[in-house]
């Protein structure tokens, strides 16, 4: 047991899964942090990203990795459209955050239903999949499939870039300011609307990328998204809402529980362990692990 726990194989799995969870949670965290929108359609945008990966590869034969910027742009475009059509006016009304949360829950639920079913009508619900980068590489005792390595590299790169963006660029710091204290941000002269648009674009773009990455290893169906919506919410709540770094840490923590705790106990306990840990962490530390980012 101990040598399994210390093995490079498990470490690799934790790395890939953690990076993925962190990436999926990132977009949700940005959108919630800046605008208090409870995007329960988050996983459905991941699904759209997965379909784009599938269709891109099937129709052109080119790696979806190359098309990632396009996928991200597509995701961002959809997000911005929703923002312009629906959310901008809701947010401009200056409503109580609790009301915005409740309304966004409902709005995104409707959006989720529409997206899932339009996709099912367009592509049928038959599962889709393709082969790509499935060579297995050996590094000592650890075996790694090409597409999982690619997922890890892309996810880590984006996460790293995000942290740099948030902490070292003006835009990034404006986003953090907005997350921390909306009114103060406005007073200081930050263009709230523009910052919100950037958040949405980045948020939806990254989740589309994660969907495209997943399409290399999982089957793609119109209703695959919900699982990831749940995972994303668990991640960002554990890490503290709006706390980007917290979300990333929580993503890896979740992966650690999923892999290491399962090794110690049993695979059957996997879901009980994850949701149990989630509930326990919240009860002990109601603002999430690293605390809330806002006042």
């Amino acid at each position, binding site marked *: 047991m101990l040598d399994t726990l210390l093995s490079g194989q498990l470490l690799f799995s934790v790395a890939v899964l953690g990076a993925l969870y962190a990436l999926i949670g990132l977009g949700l965290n940005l959108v919630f942090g800046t605008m208090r929108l409870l995007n329960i359609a988050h996983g459905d945008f991941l699904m759209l990203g997965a379909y784009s990966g599938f269709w891109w590869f099937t129709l052109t034969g080119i790696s979806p990795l190359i098309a990632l910027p396009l996928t991200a742009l597509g995701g961002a475009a959809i997000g911005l459209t929703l923002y312009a059509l629906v959310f901008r006016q809701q947010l401009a009304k200056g409503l109580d955050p609790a009301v915005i*949360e409740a309304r966004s829950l409902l709005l995104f639920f409707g959006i989720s239903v529409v997206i899932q*079913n339009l996709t099912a009508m367009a592509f049928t619900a038959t599962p889709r999949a393709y082969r790509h980068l499935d060579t297995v590489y050996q590094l000592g005792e650890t075996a790694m499939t090409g597409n999982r390595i690619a997922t890890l590299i892309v996810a880590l790169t984006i996460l790293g870039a995000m942290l740099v963006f948030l902490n070292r660029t003006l835009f990034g710091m404006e986003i953090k300011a907005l997350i921390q204290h909306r009114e103060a941000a406005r007073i200081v002269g930050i263009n709230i609307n523009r910052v919100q648009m950037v958040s949405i674009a980045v948020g939806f773009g990254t989740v589309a990328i994660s969907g495209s990455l997943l399409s290399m290893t999982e089957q793609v169906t119109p209703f695959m998204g919900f699982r990831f919506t749940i995972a994303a919410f668990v991640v960002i709540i554990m890490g503290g809402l709006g706390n980007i770094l917290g979300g990333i840490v929580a993503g890896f923590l979740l992966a650690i529980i999923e892999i290491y705790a399962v090794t110690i106990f049993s695979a059957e306990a996997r879901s009980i362990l994850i949701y149990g840990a989630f509930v326990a962490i919240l009860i002990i530390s109601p603002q999430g692990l690293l605390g809330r980012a806002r006042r």
Partner: protein
Amino acid sequence: MTQMQAKQILVPVALTALGAAALYGGALNTGPYWQVVALTLAMWIALIQSWSVFSGLTGYISLGHAVAYGLGAYLMATQFREYPVWVLVPAGGLLAGAFALIVAIPVLRIRGPYFVILTFGLSELVKFALLRLETALGASSRLLFGAPGTVELLTWMIALAAAATLLRHFVGISRFGRGLIAIREDETAAETLGVPVTRYKVLAFALSAVIPGMVGAVMALRSTYFEVLQVFSPTLSFTIVTMAIIGGSGDARGPVLGALFLVSLSEGLRGASPQLYLVLLGICLIAFVLFAPNGLTGLLSGRRK
């Protein structure tokens, strides 16, 4: 009896009784298909009213009512051969209420969106724990033969819907209810003013779980085949919240309107365009939030929340 008392007690009771009788009578006179529609309508009313007792008044949005429902259904499915239905339905409610009571104190310390997602996580936890239990029992799926027919289930459900409506109404006008509303407005202030915040929250939470537990127990009998994954559906929790917000959760009328709206919409769209109806339903929801955010009751009374 004063006019105020008549308005607050007699009228709602009479209206509820009338509504229940109308639904029941109407259903009995039409075919079995419409009886099931009536059953569905009554089910949603019972669920939303109960949800509203806690979430509507305190403002803590709970996505965990699937747990109450699921626990009641699970009890019914597993004990169906041992005990009669009229014992198991209330037992399901008690089980759900007891569970809510046990988790209430740690869970209710959490606020806002954290609370929302926590209730959801709790729901998943219970689901997987029960799945584990079923596997250990070697009974991953169960057959329920000889369950009562639609009419008997309809009777139960209309009774539950009426009970839930009256519960919501009377809690709403009681001192307890006013305390809950105070919690929604400003929890800290309420506490300073002497409202026993924790006790009230716990009580409302537990109370709101009882009827959904019974609803779950009754609905388990609709299906010959029982599987844990089916009764712990996350869509249930989301749909309850959706209908509550559409109907407006200010008082006991909202859930009835919300349920009526959604059920008639589903039935109308299903017949007209079977392929597209979910898409249109989604669009309707979105349109509703954008253009009628105070819910149907808000629309009807022209009131701003």
